[in-house]
């Protein structure tokens, strides 16, 4: 929306003021994340820019915190744990969530509203309450401080995202396609894998990504349910911040930011693909 040539002086001033305000807000959003990247290469164990860094003196920069990260036993184990827990809970959540979304999207589903409410609830209930409940329950059935316990807990947290994204993909789903497949002799299973699955795949994958990032980023449940053996990256960062704050955390943070950029790109590509496949105009 460019400024028309007949704009008054007041309009001009407002036009530029508004853009400056927006610029500042965007800056507020992105600056804290960006500022950690150079600081993670700090040669000094401080959280501020040293004089050498500001003058771009190579001595001010170093990879020591990355070296620290990749040689530290506890950090390496937490990375491994995060992936084990994240992948296992994503697989479970995606399977359960996709099945449920398929059921919910059928026109004959009874009590849809109530069931949807229950399926979404892990997203709504404050984490501290979920964590407290699971802490007591898992302790009483011997799942506390075990991998299966943390994985099951994270699965529960991840399923609402899968249900929501897959249900959204199924909204525009043309059911005559599966009917046509059945008409041509396909068994329901065959029709599902050959017709339905490819069409809802973008939704399933983005739901899976949401479930993965939920587990990967989750800390409250881990604080309550996991033991020392199940420490994940966020748990390690938590004790890093509380106990011995060192720029190693910034190195981890930088890597995680890179990871989230990769995820963001993947999701955006999937969304476009989904719109293209379903014949919706990509705006």
């Amino acid at each position, binding site marked *: *929306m460019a400024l028309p040539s007949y704009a008054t002086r007041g309009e001009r001033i407002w036009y530029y003021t*508004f853009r400056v305000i*927006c610029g500042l*807000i*965007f800056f*507020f*959003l*992105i600056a*804290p*994340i960006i*500022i*950690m990247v150079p*600081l993670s290469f700090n040669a000094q164990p401080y*959280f*501020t820019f040293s004089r050498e860094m500001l003058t771009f003196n190579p001595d001010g920069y170093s990879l020591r915190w990355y070296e620290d990260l990749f040689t530290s036993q506890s950090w390496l184990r937490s990375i491994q744990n995060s992936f084990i827990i994240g992948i296992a809970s994503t697989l479970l959540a995606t399977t359960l969530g996709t*099945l*449920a979304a398929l*059921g*919910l999207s*059928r026109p*004959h*589903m*009874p009590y849809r509203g109530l069931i949807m*409410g*229950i*399926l979404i609830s*892990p997203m*709504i209930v*404050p*984490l*501290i*309450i*979920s964590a*407290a*409940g*699971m802490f*007591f*329950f*898992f302790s009483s059935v011997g799942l506390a401080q075990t991998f299966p316990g943390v994985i099951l807990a994270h*699965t*529960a947290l991840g399923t609402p995202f899968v*249900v*929501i994204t897959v*249900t959204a993909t199924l909204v525009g789903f043309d059911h005559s396609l599966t009917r046509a497949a059945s008409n041509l002799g396909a068994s329901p299973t065959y029709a599902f894998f050959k017709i339905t699955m490819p069409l809802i795949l973008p939704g399933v994958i983005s739901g899976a990504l949401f479930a993965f*990032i939920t587990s*990967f*980023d989750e*800390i*409250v449940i881990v*604080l*309550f349910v996991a033991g020392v053996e199940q420490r994940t990256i*966020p748990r390690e*960062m938590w004790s890093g911040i509380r106990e011995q*704050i060192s720029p190693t*955390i910034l190195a981890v*943070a930088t890597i995680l*930011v890179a990871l*989230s*950029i990769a995820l*963001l790109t993947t999701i955006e590509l999937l969304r476009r693909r989904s719109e293209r496949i379903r014949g919706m105009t990509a705006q």
Partner: protein
Amino acid sequence: MAQADAGTEDLTRDASGQMVTADGVPLKQSLKRAERRRKLVAFGLVTPLLLFLLVVFIFPIGQMMWRSVDNPQVVNALPLTLEALEDWDGQGLPDEEVYAALASDFRTDMERARRDQFSGPLGVRLNYELSGARGAVARTVRNVPDFEAPYKEAFLDSHRLWGDVALWKVIEREGRPLTTAYYVAAMDREFDADGNIVMRDENRQIYINLYMRTLALSVAITVLTILLGFPIAYYMSILPMRYSNLLMIFVLLPFWTSLLVRTTAWIVLLQQQGVINESLVALGIIGDDGRFSLMYNMWGTIIAMTHILLPFMVLPLYSVMRTIPPSYVRAAKSLGATPFTAFRKVYLPQTLPGIGAGAVLVFIISIGYYITPALVGGQSGRMISNEIARHMQQSLNWGLAAALGTILLIGVLVLYWVYNRLVGAQNLKLG
């Protein structure tokens, strides 16, 4: 109907004139059966997840809520004493008979294996209501094998609290399987000598203030996200898609970045030796001793949480604003409205669904927030979740933690219901 009959060859009629399918089953029945089968299939697809969540999520939360009223300690430990106490008039100390029952209750308990003894939990439970009671129980249980009649004197010698009517009132009041005591405590109230519920002393009132602060901080954060989110959502909505998608990265990148990473970022920026204070000192704007305390107080919580929750406001606002036709505001202006009137009377009302959806979402999330306040909030930036965690992990008063949590959960569920009425949960947009 008649026309349909005439045109359909494969539908036939049975003897009574009912329509039947090819295999002779009445059409109505066949249709019903097919419908039922479809329902079963749909339900069967949902069942695994539903069962999973009921077992792993809903049941544990119900179990936790049950803890807020569950009160087995006194009933388990002192069955005979409670029976004897039934005749007590509540005035003055109970009779010898009650003390004898107490002695035999304690003796029975001492005979149990160490880990099955009820006296430990009993002491802890009574101590919540009357400080010192734990010591009284612990010391007396050790001495009770040597007690001889008259028991009343033996108990009074063992610990002075056994001669305190208040302790007996607590035992009588809490000698029931269910209790409201945790909720009474969670509302900063207590029982007075006559068993009435009264406010606690001014300096022992914690939780109501904490709930109020949680609400106030959540409102402040919600208002801030509206103030910051509205301009940029509007700006993105008037730009061509190409540019607004580009700007969207500024919103989505924080959204996708780990919560702890963002909290760490604010620690880096806000601390006394952090980037903001160092820059201000280096620029000479403030002196070295004039550094701002931006963290470990309320401001830390507000700044960091506003940043963390801003995307949750921008995304629904933007999707609503995209659908508002610009011609309405143009029409208002051409009819003589000033830009401000056109904005207030024409544009703003159309964005209300977006503001409402975003505001409820941000409010729901912030009211139960735990991590960020715990890391950057300090004392004055603590919220109710932090207190629940403290009771869970440090003071181990699980009943009180459950009561505080149940109150919080009910508040959130009411808000969620409002949100559902406003936008519908299934319209929730992710990214």
